[in-house]
């Protein structure tokens, strides 16, 4: 199940940010930002499923769309198929520059001009946001998306054959007969009958519509498909059908998936690697078994313990988070989870934690696992850390 490490990287996302301006007043002046995605970096390799989980409002969907440039990112880059040596160089360069936010002037930090110029060169070659419209349109065939709501994402005025065939027409792939053949094949692949081609979307059930959406996404033989909560509107029995189809297609076509979901059991069943997001940032990232067996971040632990298990005899202890997700327009200082964290320390509200590799492949952003050097040395801090680590040990 594990995607091997030397597989080629399809997309490599670095420091991706998307801020939506908040406008107010008569003249619509900008009064603030909703930081929907705030510095997310992930890699998606060939024929790998990356699960992206988090509560609603944490920026999962915005991330998926910004990654495909359906929404223009505020800053950051999405590199398409960078070679391994470029990848290594990228990581080194980002390490040199550090992760400065765009509105962070940081005058005391010396600006590494050479590194920035080199990054710019790489971006010119590989980054999606530097592609011209024509190049981007070609790439769109390789990067596809299946939307969450199967009722809203299909045009009610088009026949199914038009919906599924439209990407082929836009990209001028093959002759008309070939296109027709391809559409029929696609229908078979997702488990629909050829007679369904001549129907309108409203004649289908939710599960069937989601299959049509999948068929449309697969029409151009993409390399990566973003699945934005593909089963959240469906019943469990139908959900299982869809998940099985997605798995089968991945095996046959070496597809990569970014599987966005708030349903952790589904992610466990589908993903190879899981990224946990909270308020626009990645808090934990690990291979699926590692994450579910050994969650490190308190938020992940709470999420996992909140899942209802289909077994009435189990009696689990449960971490119940109080309150709601804070507003991304005004995120808490320091660690963004500190307002709801059961293991909060004094340092959490002051210093922002960064992703660190705790075990091989397992990254976590939490002060419980070491405080960055820039943290102010305080006595209260160390005592808090002791208490917290003893908590963790227990």
């Amino acid at each position: 199940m594990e995607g091997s490490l030397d597989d080629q990287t399809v997309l490599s996302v670095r420091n991706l940010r998307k801020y939506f301006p908040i406008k107010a007043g008569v003249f619509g002046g900008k009064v603030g930002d909703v930081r929907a995605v705030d510095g997310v970096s992930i890699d998606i390799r060939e024929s790998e499923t990356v699960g992206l989980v988090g509560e609603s409002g944490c920026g999962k969907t915005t991330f998926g769309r910004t990654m495909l440039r359906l929404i223009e990112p505020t800053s950051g880059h999405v590199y398409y198929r960078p070679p391994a040596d470029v990848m290594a160089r990228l990581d080194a360069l980002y390490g040199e520059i550090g992760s400065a936010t765009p509105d962070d002037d940081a005058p005391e930090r010396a600006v590494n001009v050479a590194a920035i110029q080199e990054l710019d060169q790489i971006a010119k070659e590989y980054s999606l946001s530097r592609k011209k419209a024509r190049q981007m349109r070609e790439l769109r065939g390789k990067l596809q998306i299946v939307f969450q709501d199967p009722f809203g994402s299909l045009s009610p005025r088009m026949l199914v054959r038009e919906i599924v065939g439209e990407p082929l027409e836009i990209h001028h792939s093959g002759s008309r007969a070939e296109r027709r053949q391809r559409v029929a094949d696609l229908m078979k692949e997702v488990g629909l009958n050829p007679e369904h081609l001549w129907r309108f979307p409203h004649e289908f059930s939710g599960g069937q519509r989601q299959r049509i959406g999948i068929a449309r996404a697969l029409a151009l033989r993409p390399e990566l498909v973003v699945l934005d909560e593909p089963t959240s509107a469906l019943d469990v029995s139908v959900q299982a059908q869809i998940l099985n189809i997605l798995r089968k297609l991945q095996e046959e076509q070496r597809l990569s998936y970014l599987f966005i979901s708030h349903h952790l059991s589904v992610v466990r069943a589908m993903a190879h690697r899981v990224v946990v997001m909270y308020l626009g940032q990645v808090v934990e990232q690990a291979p699926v078994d590692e994450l579910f067996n050994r969650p490190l971040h308190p938020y992940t632990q709470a999420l996992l313990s909140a899942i209802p298990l289909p077994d009435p005899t189990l009696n689990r202890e449960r971490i119940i988070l109080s309150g709601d997700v804070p507003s991304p327009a005004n995120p808490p200082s320091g660690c963004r989870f500190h307002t709801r964290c059961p293991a909060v320390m004094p340092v959490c509200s002051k210093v922002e934690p960064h992703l660190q590799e705790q075990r091989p492949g397992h990254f976590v952003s939490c002060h419980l696992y070491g405080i960055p050097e820039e943290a102010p040395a305080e006595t209260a801090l160390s005592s808090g850390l002791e208490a917290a680590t003893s908590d963790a040990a227990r």
Partner: protein
Amino acid sequence: MAVAATPTTPLPETGSPLPRQIVRPAGASSGQPKGDVVLDIRNLKTYFYTYDGVVRALDGISFKVRKGETLGIAGETGCGKSVTVFSVMRLIPDPPGRIVSGKILFRGANLLWGIDREAKVKPIKNTGRVKVTRRFRRIKAANERMSAIRGRGISMIFQEPSQAMNPIFPVYDQIGEVLLLHRGPELIDGLLGATPEDPGVEPAIEALASASARNAPQSEIRELAKALADALHLPSFSIRAFHLSRPTSASRNQDVRKALHKEVRGLHLSAVEKGYLRNRKALILLENDLRATYFQEMQEGELDRRGERATRNRMRLRRYSHLYFRFPGVTRRLERPLRDETLWRSVEILEGVRIANPVQIAKSYPFELSGGMLQRVMIAMALAPEPVILMADEPTTALDVTVQAQILGLMRDLKERVGTSIVLITHDLAVLAEVADRVCIMYAGEIVENAPIVRLFESPLHPYTQGLLASIPRFDRPDKRLESIPGSVPNLITPPTGCKFHPRCPFAMPICKESRPPMTDEGDEHSVACFLYHGAPMVE
């Protein structure tokens, strides 16, 4: 009043919103028979008469809800789960929907009494359609009778909380409406009995204000607020005083004192205000009286002459009060003490569902709150009248897992505290595993299996239940292959003959196509409708 008519549960007289301590029987979660039956549904049929034909949304379902029990109803979309609770509440939109036959017995009162006289159904020849002649006066009367049941008897949580609340009133107005309806006389008596001129009031305010100024601990402030309320002879004032003098709020000594004085001044009622309150109380009492009559009617199955008299009285009083208070702005001003009181009562109720800053939440409008918060408000509202049964229609489907865990924990707590029976509808069997005592599995408008929760997960009998359980992704068992049920839910206008599940069933036999399997008893309170099993047929 509905509950007053039956002696089984005493009416809570005064005090906080959720004071009753109901001790659950020892074997509560083991699914053993316990408590008396509060809701008994027998052979309920709800049809929708559409232009395409008759949709048999509920095709003869029967189940019982016992006191203090959580009954889960599960199934795929479109199998009739929501129609079941909407039928019980009689909220089916009519037209096109109609409860055709059956019985819904709530503590011996048949909620469907007179249903056969409400409409006539005549088939149109050579088409699959029917002509329905409705008698709207009877339907209206039946709807009015339901006011005896809704709220105190059976209350409901809807799936989409933001849709179910009124967007133009703040939260406390909407909770207050429920409060006035169900415990209005108690509220008004409290206000009329308050003694703001009591000599003990002034020192109590002083003590509270100084405690607030020196940031005294919460428990101490709570004590002092209670002392002030005692001095005022208005127990519900303590919550008001507590929130006004909390160290976290704008807490300059003077401000607290001023605010408290203002609140106490508000308790001095003028003669007109008192008159208004008395009038209001008389109205509420009359309405309660009317509901008791309705309930009795439904129990005995015949019309009560007293009901007519009560209606006449009520109309007279309405007209009278309108004549008296219809001057613009006057009613609103006269309502003020009552509105204040309902605000703080709402705050108290919101505190009961563990909302962190209840004053702010109570004063906000529904659109300002998140889905999880609104759902908590909805639950608070549904539980404010302390219903005998709580119907929850997919209460957590629109929410995140972390919030879902909070809400489910809350429902479990409140069930134990108030002793309410819960009917929980969901398509997520994992949720039922967490909270339900017993589960009904529905398919295409029929109940196919009914079992205690542990039995259902250990040995599901019906092939449909087995399919449902196999299709749940388990995060604790990732290697298990996901099974799915082939096909989809059938069209209910022309459902399959015999057992409705047979086209999707892996064990279908010739008999399944021909006749509908009866519900058979398979022991241990486990019953199933499938020809694979040969238990004794259930007696209806």
